[in-house]
C-alpha cells in the first residue's frame, strides 16, 4: 500500500460544548435502519430480542431512512447496492451514524477478489464504527454499540460532518465506481451487436460446415 494514501476514517472533527449536551440525549435514543444486503442480518434478531435485548440501550428498529439515526451495513456491498446505500444515507437527517458489520465493508472479506463487490466502504461513505468478524456475534455487536455511545458522547463519531466537509472527495470516489464509462481490463466487443435472426445464423452455420468438408 502506498504510504501517502491515508484511509479516510480519521476523526478530524470535534464538537462544541452545546453539542456535548445534545450528544448526551442523542446517544440514549438511536433508531436503526439496517440495510440487509449480506449475511449479517441474521445476527440482529438475537441482538434485538429477549436474550441480549438491545432496547435497554434505547435502540430500536425504524422503517424509513428519514427517521433513522443509525445505518447498519450488514454484509458485503455490490456496486448495485452501493448506489442504494448512498441514497439511503443521504436521505437520513443529521446527526447520523454508519456502522459496518463484519469484514466485508472493511476490506471486502471473502469477496475481496470478486468482480461486483466493493472492497473498502470507507472510500465511499464515512464509517463511524466497524465491527470485525465474519459474522460478529451479538456480544460483539452490543460491545460496538457501547463504544459508539461513548464516541457519540465524546464527540468523536462525526462521520456526517466529515461527509459534508469532504463531499467532493466522496462524490468523486463514488462516481469512479458507479459512473464508469470505459472497460478496465479488456473491452467487450459483442459479436452479435447487430442482432441477426435465427435463420441468418443457421444459414451461416451451414456454410461454415460445408467449408470444413
Amino acid at each position, binding site marked *: 500500500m502506498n504510504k501517502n*494514501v491515508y484511509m*479516510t476514517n480519521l476523526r478530524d472533527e470535534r464538537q462544541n460544548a452545546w453539542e456535548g449536551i445534545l450528544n448526551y440525549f442523542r446517544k440514549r435514543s438511536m433508531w436503526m435502519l439496517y440495510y440487509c444486503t449480506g449475511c449479517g442480518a441474521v445476527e440482529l434478531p438475537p441482538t434485538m430480542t429477549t436474550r441480549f435485548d438491545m432496547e435497554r440501550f434505547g435502540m430500536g428498529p425504524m422503517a424509513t431512512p428519514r427517521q433513522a439515526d443509525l445505518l447498519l451495513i450488514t454484509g458485503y456491498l455490490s456496486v448495485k447496492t452501493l448506489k442504494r446505500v448512498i441514497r439511503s444515507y443521504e436521505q437520513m437527517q443529521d446527526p447520523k451514524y454508519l456502522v459496518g458489520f463484519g469484514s466485508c465493508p472493511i476490506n471486502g472479506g471473502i469477496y475481496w477478489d*470478486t*468482480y461486483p463487490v466493493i472492497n473498502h466502504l470507507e472510500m465511499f461513505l464515512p464509517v463511524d464504527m466497524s465491527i470485525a468478524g465474519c459474522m460478529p456475534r451479538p456480544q460483539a455487536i452490543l460491545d460496538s454499540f457501547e463504544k459508539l455511545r461513548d464516541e457519540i458522547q465524546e464527540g468523536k463519531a462525526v462521520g456526517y460532518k466529515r461527509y459534508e466537509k469532504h463531499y467532493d472527495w466522496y462524490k468523486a470516489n463514488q462516481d469512479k*465506481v458507479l459512473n464508469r464509462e470505459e472497460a478496465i481490463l479488456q473491452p*467487450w466487443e459483442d459479436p452479435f451487436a447487430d442482432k441477426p435472426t435465427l435463420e441468418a445464423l443457421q444459414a451461416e452455420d451451414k456454410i461454415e460446415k460445408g467449408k470444413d468438408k
Partner: protein
Amino acid sequence: MKNFNEFIQKFNSFYQNKAGLTRKYKQQYQIVTGRDELLGILNWCKQNSFYHLANITCVDWIEDEEFELVYNLWSYEFKVGCLFKIRIPRAKPWAPTAFELWGQAQVYEQEIHEFFGVYFPGNPDLSSLFLHNWHDLPPLRKDFDPLEYSRQAYTVEGLGVKPEYEPEVEPEDNSEGRKS
C-alpha cells in the same frame, strides 16, 4: 407413457442417431445432442411428461473452445431428472431460444447472455440484469480475471484515491548523511 423404460425405448427409436441418452445417477439421466436438434427434442420431451424446466446453465470449456449449455428438466410422473447438454463454439456462441416452450427460460437466457455472452436469437429481452454499468468481458468466462479486475476497480491504488486532505509532511532527516 406408463413408466420410464417405455420413454427410453421411444426416445431411442426416434432419436437414436441424433442424441445419446445415458444414465448418470440413480434418478438422473443425461441427453447429449447438437444445437440443430435441441428444440425438437426439448419439445418432444416436454410433451412426454418432462414439462418442468428447472434451470439453464452454461459451462465454459476453454480448452475445447466450447460452451456447454445444460437444461435441467424434471418429470413429476417418472420422478426422474434429465440433463440436456449441447456444445456450441466459443468464438461466436449462439443457441435457439427455449422461450417459446417455457416462459421462464427467458430470464435464464438473459442471465447467460450477460455472464457468458451467448446470444439467443428470438429472446425478447437480453438486456443487462445484474451487473451495473459493465463494459468488460462477460465476467464468468474463464479468460476473465476477477482478481485483477477487483484490484483495478475497487482498491485504493486501482482507483487512484488521494487523501481527503494533504497531511503535513515532516522534512526528511539528513543528519546521518552529514556526519559521514
